[in-house]
């Protein structure tokens, strides 16, 4: 973030070009992204993303919190996929602690994580289509998103900032009818994806706005650090869930959708197929949900049940100790990466053996993906910038942290 005058050399480089400022308050920049365009007529000569308008210093804040107090902060990084962030952080700390997570907690995590992916992709699809001019899709997507948010509320008490995954498991046992409600949603959802596809996939206007636009080759995508659907849309077959599985993803069967063209349409196809794969994984999780505890057997790390606290002295003591002093984590460092809806989300945590993390760093998939923007847009029209920004699915909370 900077004052307009001091950020980037705002002088045109040629006689015939001019500078155009887009954002940070612009409906199609998905938050507070600022883009500076040098244009020759309608054609883009140079494009420069300017970020930092949402920088809140979360990494610094984490250093002053106990490990368990960081969980609610992780929700607020990428507010469209809170559970993916919870998961990544929890996995990293569990790796530092050497903690085993019971199967039911793992399966619950996978199920909620895939619902989160659907939730995030629905917001992406709705706003991306809205940017390009397809108004209806937005309303359809938010209709289903509302169902998912209700499920989140049922399981965690919150619609968006769930903090449902905790270090050592998940916060609460899901309510009684929860799995039935998820199954009901999972049965309905595939036909809804058909509805979106009916509106868009074969739509000639949609195709004209997206096919061949903002093309990126596989080599460029890898070199510039792209990940997730942005990478797979360029024909690179890589998905952390399948290739470097975590949290029990190795037990699930799913296809990784890829497309070869590397344009906006290819990325659209990848994400829409991911919607179908994710809901199939939710079904699998429901069918195979193991029985058992939802928290690891680690009394010094995991908060005890309220019931135990009222009857057992040790539980009360542990609860008091965790809340007031936190728990010490053995010194060391880990880098845990998960496949977020936007790509590789990674947490690098350094512990110095105390109850507060020495350093927490979040690898943001969007920050890396945003670097593709100049490659995508230079030489193309202004209207394509809007399509390109939508197609890399940025969330500024995650970019700026």
């Amino acid at each position, binding site marked *: 973030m900077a004052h307009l005058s001091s950020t980037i050399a705002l002088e045109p480089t040629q006689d015939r070009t001019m500078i155009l400022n887009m954002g940070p308050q612009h409906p199609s920049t998905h938050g507070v992204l600022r883009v500076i365009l040098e244009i020759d007529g309608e054609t883009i000569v140079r494009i420069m993303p300017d970020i*930092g308008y949402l920088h809140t210093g979360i990494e610094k804040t984490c250093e002053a919190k106990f490990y368990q107090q960081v969980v609610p902060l992780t929700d607020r990084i990428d507010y469209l996929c809170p559970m993916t962030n919870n998961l990544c952080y929890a996995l990293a700390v569990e790796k530092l602690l050497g903690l085993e997570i019971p199967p039911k907690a793992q399966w619950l995590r996978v199920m909620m994580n895939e619902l989160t992916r659907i939730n995030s992709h629905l917001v992406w699809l709705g706003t991306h289509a809205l940017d390009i001019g397809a108004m209806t899709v937005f309303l359809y997507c938010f209709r289903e998103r509302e169902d998912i948010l209700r499920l989140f509320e049922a399981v965690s008490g919150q619609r968006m900032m769930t903090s449902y995954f905790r270090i050592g498991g998940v916060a609460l046992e899901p309510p009684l009818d929860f799995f039935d409600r998820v199954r009901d949603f999972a049965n309905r959802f595939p036909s809804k994806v058909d509805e979106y596809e009916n509106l868009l996939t074969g739509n000639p206007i949609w195709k004209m706005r997206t096919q061949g636009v903002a093309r990126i080759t596989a080599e460029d995508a890898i070199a510039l650090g792209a990940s997730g659907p942005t990478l797979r849309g360029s024909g690179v077959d890589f998905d952390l869930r399948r290739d470097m599985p975590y949290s029990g993803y190795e037990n699930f069967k799913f296809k990784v959708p890829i497309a070869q063209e590397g344009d906006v349409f290819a990325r659209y196809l990848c994400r829409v197929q991911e919607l179908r794969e994710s809901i199939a994984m939710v079904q699998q999780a429901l069918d195979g949900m193991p029985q058992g505890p939802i928290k690891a057997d680690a009394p010094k790390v995991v908060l005890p049940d309220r019931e135990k606290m009222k009857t057992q002295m040790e539980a009360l003591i542990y609860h008091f100790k965790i809340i007031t002093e936190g728990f010490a984590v053995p010194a060391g460092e880990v880098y845990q990466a998960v496949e977020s809806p936007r790509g590789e989300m990674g947490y690098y945590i350094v512990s110095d053996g105390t109850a507060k993390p020495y350093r927490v760093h979040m690898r943001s998939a969007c920050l890396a993906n945003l670097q593709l923007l100049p490659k995508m847009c230079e030489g193309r029209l202004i209207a394509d910038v809007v399509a390109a920004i939508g197609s890399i699915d940025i969330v500024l909370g995650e970019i700026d942290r």
Partner: protein
Amino acid sequence: MLTPAVTDLEQLKDHPAVARLRSWNPAAVEGAKFDRDELSIYVGRSSLREACALLRDDATCPFNFLSDVTCVDWHPREPRFEIIYQLLSIPKKERVRLKVRLGGDSPGVESVTSVWPAANFFEREVFDLFGIRFTGHPYLRRIQMPENWEGHPLRKDYPVEGYR
């Protein structure tokens, strides 16, 4: 349960990344650590960029993807800074972490943007929040903080309430 970390370079010499770097220049590898299934290699400051290029173009296990660049401030210990590069091999599905130690006195290291253009924003962020200079970076300006900001917020000696 946790197994103790392996820090003996001799025990780790069979790992492809360690072997590759040592066969190229034994002096470049200052140490290695295998902890919690993750391998870290300490690389000399002067050989970092070449080591990165070597690992990227390795024939058997090319680390073609730069996941992340970040920094840890060990103030007041010297060498104060550790720059951390998370490398990923997409074909082999392997990860390795390269580390460079830097002293607290005008810390700087060669930029790896010529190896992976992805390093551009990551290095700008480390420059912004830690004050590390990356020589050869095409556009080393603040990225998160305002241009006229004083200090580097993620340093351990930075006052949390800001300078008064």
